[in-house]
């Protein structure tokens, strides 16, 4: 379709100068499909969320619908302990997940960056969970955590641990059980990114450092880590936003339970809008989440300086 748009312009005759070969409207025609789709299915929904956040809007209770001013926001901040609980849990989830994924991902990347026999196969295997969906991850770990058939049962058979209940239905263990399941899928993300960036470290630097007698740990701190800094900052921020927003895994693995202890803010919002049909309030909560993420995106843009250098 986009190509058709390009064809519609009279093909530029052979020219010498670049400027004259560039029809003025062509770039606009080329971005038009993307712009239209994003306006219709991202911008418009975002604006309608802002609009509903100022409304009482609940299809099951139409007699209460109408303009609400900032009531929804006031309610969230002053009168809704669940909002604060889920916000705090979201923060905890994001910090723990991103921190651990970065740590293990960095270690894994450094290891598979070495030269050793079986490296290709090793890389393929440790990176493989990256392609697995959130729902499939849940399915796998539901099997593993199941108290009848899961790995704990076999460990208990061998005398390690107790039979007990599933780690997913115990409020004391569910957090770490979910963290481990998400780590399984998330560590390869960082490992792949960091490994890609490691390829561009100049080997000469290490050789020079070695000539100067720097230990490997020193080389890591003074050569490798500074080189990786940008990639780490960017991927960490991106991942944090992604972990905040992503509901697939927790929705299917724990459903936010038991007793709501693994409900993130987006999960709470989904429940509020889908189950309770309280669209107005859910929209207000969404707006709050946007503001938090907007803050992140400003930091992200500052750090990445994206679009600052064009050809």
């Amino acid at each position, binding site marked *: 379709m986009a190509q058709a748009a390009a064809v519609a312009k009279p093909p530029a005759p052979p020219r010498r100068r670049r400027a004259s070969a560039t029809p003025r409207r062509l*770039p606009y025609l080329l971005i038009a499909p993307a712009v239209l*789709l994003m306006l219709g299915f*991202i911008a418009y929904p975002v604006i309608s969320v802002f609009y509903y956040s100022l409304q009482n809007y609940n299809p099951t209770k139409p007699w209460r619908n109408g303009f609400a001013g900032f009531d929804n926001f006031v309610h969230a901040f002053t009168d809704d302990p669940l909002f604060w609980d889920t916000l705090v849990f979201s923060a905890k989830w994001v910090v723990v997940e991103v921190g651990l994924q970065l740590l293990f991902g960095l270690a*894994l990347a450094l290891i598979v960056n070495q030269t050793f026999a079986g490296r290709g196969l090793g890389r393929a295997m440790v990176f493989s969970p990256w*392609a697995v969906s*959130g729902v499939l991850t849940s399915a796998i770990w539901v099997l593993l955590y199941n108290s009848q058939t899961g790995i704990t049962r076999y460990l208990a058979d061998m005398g390690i641990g107790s039979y007990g209940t599933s780690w997913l239905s115990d409020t004391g263990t569910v957090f770490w059980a979910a963290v481990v399941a998400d780590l399984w899928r998330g560590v390869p993300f960082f490992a792949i990114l960091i490994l890609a960036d490691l390829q561009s470290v100049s080997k000469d630097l*290490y050789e020079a450092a070695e000539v100067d007698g720097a230990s490997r740990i020193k080389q890591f701190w003074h050569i490798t880590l500074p080189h990786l800094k940008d*990639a780490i900052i960017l991927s960490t921020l991106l991942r944090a936003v992604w972990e905040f927003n992503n509901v697939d895994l927790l929705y299917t693995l724990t459903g936010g339970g038991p007793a709501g202890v693994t409900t993130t803010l987006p999960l709470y919002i989904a429940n509020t809008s889908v189950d309770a049909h309280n669209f107005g309030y859910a929209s207000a909560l969404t707006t709050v989440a946007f503001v938090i993420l907007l803050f992140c995106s400003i930091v*992200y843009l500052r750090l990445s300086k994206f679009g600052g250098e064009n050809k």
Partner: protein
Amino acid sequence: MTTKEAIAVAPAPAPTVPEPPRPAKKSRRAWDEAPRWQIYLPLGIYLVFTLIPFYWILLFSLRPAGSTSLVPWPMTFDHFEKVWTERSFGIYFQNSVLVGVATLFMTTLVALAGGYALARFDFKVKQVFMLALLCSQFVPGALLLVPLFEIFAELQMINSLGSVIIAETVFQLPLSIILISNFIKNVPYSLEEAAWVDGCGRMKAFRIVVLPLLRPGLIAVGSFAFVHSWNHFLFALMFLNNQEKQTIPVGLNTLMGADSVDLGALAAGGIVAAVPVVIVFAFIQKWLITGFSAGAVKG
């Protein structure tokens, strides 16, 4: 630089990271000198953590119901048969393939156009467009479910796969455009200009000169789009009520939500969900190596 950013924005979607060709006769390199056990021990431990879950689901899908054996023997394919017919995974599979392929083509075409504009032109709203692309990465689809549902209801597209295809495409677009524009920037403009001098129009020059060089990039972006839409769950869950229209992740979720979970069926369903993704990666691996080596040389 741009390539490095592209990789940072979107990870290589495959377990392959290229080696830039190393100088053959360099002397000893410090990082290559780690003692073997310092490599194999942590790697082995991590491999156990990675592979046991895969083994577990394979085991459950192949051993008979009620068995507690730790090897899938005697082997049975009953679970697969059951999941494919009784649990409608045959239909879900068709729907998922349709959504995945349609998303792949729509995303690639629209992103190719937008990416070309970004890479090759300076125009007034370019900065605004780039900013919009980046900001949209922070807009979670999950939080827009209700307004999106209303839009699709208005368009009479609820219960039609079209709604899911559009939604998946839209949320794939920003990243795909940024990626493709970076791939196009890596193709020297002078090549295109040379083709114009030889009498090609812009479109023909693009098709003959640029497109073949973009193949690794297009395959990377296309496979992203396919895998994401194959894996994604919420849009299908929300917009498709009719069981005939559901996709694989929704089917998996239904299996998990049943009152007494049929673990064998769940495991077999999981394998069905995993197989296409594995095949896609096996197929595109060599293209990705080419694609990202080109990037590594530049970055």
